[in-house]
């Protein structure tokens, strides 16, 4: 019965949102607002319609609840086929509640397209790279985050029902939006034996009582009722299948990795995205945006796994810049946060051979309400951290009151709870805490998109130079070639080369008979490691900011072509005449 009322409320809320008019979505897109699921799709469609020659919009698959997942490709066909260029992949909102990640993706697309032809750097990146943008991975999650009652941290899951409390019923006891305001807030009840009392300065804040001190309140947890009458409240919400634990590389079953799902890529939308990436082998770097905490995380996600030093160096090229572009963020391997199995970034790096970053967007410490301080007092760790917890809460509430005009916090209000009787409901609303207020969004999306942009600039650029040709008798020519990668990211990751993940990058001499060929170890001493078989093809992975030289002894005369072939870097070719 209660359920019917609640679902009726949900349907009503749904209709209400669709009727709301937040302004027409048009190019250039606005970033002083959040887009719901439908609006993100609309935004992609208007970008696609405004730039038909530079963009392609693909519906790449559907979610568990049948919602469409869209990917926008930005590529200038006049400068080449997309698969021939180094691919840059960006996605967001894999966790349903982490919505601003979608706005970062939209912003990146909007920035590349609206500044193309105006800004020289942007023009170059659009012409030189292929960009693949999936603003919303967890489409069901985004939909439900907007339309249902939520906390800032609920509704992360893929919509695959799981019996969290193992009672044979699935997702039967989620939090309930009792007051119908679209938020799941806290419940508290007046209780002289409670463990909490109100703060002396701000009575919205509850602080723990000291031993022996009389309490005023007991906290009852998040808004909800005991839907399944098992004596527990809100213990079996949607899922939990964590879309960032369901990928194939180093996947572990749910009893080892919570949220893993029953098997790798059991999420149908995730499977579709994997297929999409698999069909774009040119992708050399990828970003998955999350919230929160202000972090740039790289692989590995588990500390027993090591990656080659030259790949770490390539990561550092980006990571060490990124923390300056986004002040306050830290750059570190993901396992330092906590170990994860089956995460998207490891999958992208180890399975698809692309550098991968997680961007953990937003730091709540940016919600400030205070005079600028001239540096923290010495030995005052608390002021370094921004004060005690209560002091931080006070400041956050002042920020809510005076900077955000009260939009982030719901004042405590009386409510008649079916089980507890008279309680109060209040606290931070869903569009708070992990999400910047829209006035801060523009800064966030731009800085983070700038990091993606920087990595596009660092995708490999290969230069080939035949720097020495000599006749050495017996109808033989000694030909020396230098291959240089001018940018910071390798043409093939060292890990992919080590794992023999796909056909290795190579130099191929065509048109002449190659008698011997190999890598030049010392050009001045003419030290060459000749390859025993098939000397006309030389395999190697070229790290960022590096060069390598090869020598070929070629029999006969005439035209010879030397090709550099790579799955991810742009292929180059040189013709010589012997």
């Amino acid at each position: 019965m209660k359920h019917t009322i609640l679902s009726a409320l949900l349907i009503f809320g749904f209709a209400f949102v669709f009727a709301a008019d937040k302004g027409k979505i048009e190019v250039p897109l606005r970033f002083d607002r959040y887009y719901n699921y439908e609006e993100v799709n609309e935004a992609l469609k208007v970008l696609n319609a405004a730039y038909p020659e530079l963009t392609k919009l693909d519906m790449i698959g559907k979610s568990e609840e049948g919602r469409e997942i869209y990917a926008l490709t930005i590529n200038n066909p006049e400068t080449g086929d997309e698969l021939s260029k180094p691919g840059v992949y960006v996605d967001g909102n894999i966790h349903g509640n982490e919505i601003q990640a979608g706005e970062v993706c939209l912003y990146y697309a909007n920035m590349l397209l609206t500044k193309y032809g105006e800004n020289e750097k942007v023009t170059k990146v659009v012409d030189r790279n292929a960009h693949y943008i999936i603003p919303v991975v967890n489409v069901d999650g985004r939909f439900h985050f907007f339309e249902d009652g939520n906390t800032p941290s609920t509704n992360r899951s893929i919509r695959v029902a799981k019996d969290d409390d193992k009672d044979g019923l699935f997702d039967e006891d989620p939090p309930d939006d009792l007051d119908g305001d679209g938020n799941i807030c806290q419940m508290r009840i007046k209780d002289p034996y409670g463990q909490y009392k109100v703060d002396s300065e701000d009575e919205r804040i509850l602080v723990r009582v000291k031993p022996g001190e009389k309490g005023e309140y007991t906290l009852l947890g998040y808004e909800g009722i005991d839907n399944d009458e098992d004596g527990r409240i809100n213990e079996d919400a949607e899922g939990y299948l964590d879309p960032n634990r369901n990928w194939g590389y180093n996947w572990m079953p749910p009893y080892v990795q919570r949220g893993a799902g029953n098997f790798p890529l059991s999420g149908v939308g995730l499977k579709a995205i994997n297929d999409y990436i698999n069909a774009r082998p040119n992708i050399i770097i990828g970003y998955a945006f999350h919230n929160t905490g202000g972090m740039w995380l790289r692989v590995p996600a588990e500390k027993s796994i090591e990656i080659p030093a030259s790949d770490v160096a390539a990561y550092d090229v980006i990571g060490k810049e990124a923390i300056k572009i986004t002040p306050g963020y830290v750059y570190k391997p993901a396992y330092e946060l906590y170990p994860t199995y089956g995460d998207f970034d490891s999958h992208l790096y180890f399975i698809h051979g692309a550098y991968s970053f997680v961007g953990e967007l937003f730091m709540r410490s940016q919600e400030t309400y205070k005079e600028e301080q001239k540096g923290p007092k010495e030995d005052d760790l608390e002021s370094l951290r921004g004060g005690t917890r209560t002091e931080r809460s006070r400041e956050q509430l002042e920020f809510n009151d005076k900077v955000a005009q009260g939009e982030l916090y719901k004042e405590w209000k009386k409510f008649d709870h079916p089980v507890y009787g008279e309680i109060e409901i209040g606290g931070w609303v869903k569009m708070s805490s992990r999400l910047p207020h829209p006035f801060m969004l523009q800064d966030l999306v731009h800085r983070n998109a700038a990091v993606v942009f920087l990595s596009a600039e660092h995708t490999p650029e290969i230069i080939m130079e035949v720097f020495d040709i000599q006749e050495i008798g017996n109808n033989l020519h000694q030909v020396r070639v230098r291959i240089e990668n001018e940018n910071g990211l390798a043409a093939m990751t060292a890990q992919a080369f080590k794992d023999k993940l796909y056909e290795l990058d190579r130099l191929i001499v065509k048109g002449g008979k190659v008698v011997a060929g190999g890598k030049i170890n010392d050009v001045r001493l003419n030290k060459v490691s000749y390859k025993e078989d098939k000397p006309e093809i030389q395999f190697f992975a070229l790290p960022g900011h590096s060069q390598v030289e090869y020598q070929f002894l070629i029999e006969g005369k005439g035209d010879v072509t030397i090709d550099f072939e790579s799955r991810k870097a742009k292929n180059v070719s040189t013709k010589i005449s012997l």
Partner: protein
Amino acid sequence: MMKKLFNLLLLPVLIFGISKVSAQGISFDKYHTNDEVQQILNSLQTGNSGSVKLHTIATSPGGEEVKVLEIGSSLEDVPAIFVGANFEGDRPISTEGALYLAQMLLDSSKYTENIKWYILPQPNPDAAAGYFADVKYNLSVNQFEINKDVDEALNEDGFEDLNGDGLITKMRVKDIEGSYVVSKNDARIMVRAKTSKGERGAYKIYTEGIDNDADGKYNEDGPGGINVGIAFPHLFPRDKKEAGRFSGETPEVYGILRFIYDRPEIAMVYTLGSSDFCAVQPKGGRKGGANLSNIKLPGRYARMFGADPNKTYTMEQVIEMVKPQVPPGMEVTPSMVAGFLGLGAAVNPLDADLKFYKNFNQEYKKFLEAKNYKTEALDPAPAKDGSFELWAYYHLGVPSFSMNLFTVPKVKEEKKEENGALSLDEVEKMETEEFVALGEEKIDAFLKENNATKFNAKTVIDMMESGKVTPKQMVAMLKNMPKPEKEEGELSDKDKALLAWSESHWEGKGFVTWEAAEHPTLGDVEIGGYAPYLESTPKAELIDSLASIKIPWLLQLSTKMPELKIADSKTTELGKGVYKLEVFVENKGEIAYPISMGERNNYPAPVMLVLDGDIEILEGTKRMKVGSIGSNQVKKLSWIVKAKINSTIDARLESVVFTDDVKQIKIGG
């Protein structure tokens, strides 16, 4: 040379038994091609349309459909058994075995009254086609595109049948850098030269073919693909190219996983293939798995539970420590404890489960003996990492039984002179005192017999008396030791068995005699060696008899499934309309529900006892978890309720796995 007695009479029934005529009209006098398998499945479906359904669960990279036959499709609310066969594609007899099982199930209704069966005879159709190919080479991979030598071309360097005999065998080439020599005992067999004994190799061995891509490697990038049989997620062998890049990358595996997880009623899994859990319990002893009877608590948890971080505890002890720390009513399971302690994945079979495996191993032995099947054959292969049968046990947490229908019979040798030494099996069962009491002489004889020459009786007795080792642990150690070296030049048991089998059942053609040939790059070579499928696939005449002896055991095993029922109930008045209500749930099966691994991984569906009636529950909940019940055990659930005398309530035992059971309980009655 030692005298050999070939066990030519492999199967008495082959001569005396007459195969039954089946109503299903499948003849097992040949191996069926995939097209024929599909036809059989279709005809089984049309011939039994009321009870059989055919599911297409995937299309292989080679374009073949993968199908599951559901027997008992009209049944609802019953447990199911999933049967998969021939995952590696190179054991066609397993596919036949699965069809044989389907036939038996359809011929009689005895095993399909309360159980639904899902039968997957051909999970790797691309590879299975290899047995019927013009050129055979134990194909186990599908047609998934993998560039195995990661050069510029795909599938450019496969085998070539240079001598045109339809078989890919080996090439031996005289080579100064070679590491092989011809066995002194049998000129057909190549063995590694013993450099430690001053022997020098004379031959290199290659697989039959040419170096098509001229890269110096032979046949390293032939057509295909992924081996479905090693591509499941338990211990997925990611260092093997033929497993794919991740589990489920190939559609057959993905489709099978999806199909099974969509059916939580699957309570038991059979696999027909190369391993044999029916005969030998799943292998343990792998490093890296947490030992649940030796758990160390990290400092912060030790403090939280008031435990000693320097001591080790059993899982049961840790559960007792955690219980007071969780909200009332919350069940503390081994899975939960292992989860927060970060114990990782289980990689060894759990002790409690090995008990039922062991019991059934013994019963199976007797079962075969009763059928007069006494062939001593080569040991079945251990289950592979990434195999279906391991995954079923570790990830589904259900009893997983694999069966090997055929390994080559061993060559019986005349027994060595009886030296009275005890066997490993005898010692394994002994208590420490018993073993020590044997005395030094007997213990020395035992150690010598088992090649444990590094030890002498005295040190072993000392170790046992100080509690460092038990006879059981010692036997486990001895079993893991390298096998004693054969006498100079003597063939391995496997070579002996294969050569004998080739003579007795392949007219000698199981070993292709080395013959000289001219190779385009290697020059003078000889081509020869064991024929593909010799080891795994007997001639078709044996299918029927092997299946008729072994497959019925799978039916027998199905009767051992857990069976949960409400056994009894009791109400006791505490006064003034307040009653204590007790319900007893029994497991009449021979296997616990869930098995120990199921408790660890927390996957098997819960069984709930649900009360329905005009009562007020004072203690307990309307839906109560039954939790785990051992084989032939009873579990008591109790409530305190307020109810009117003589009113009735329904107690319903509910789960997606087992048939629900309802009992009406009269209050005060």
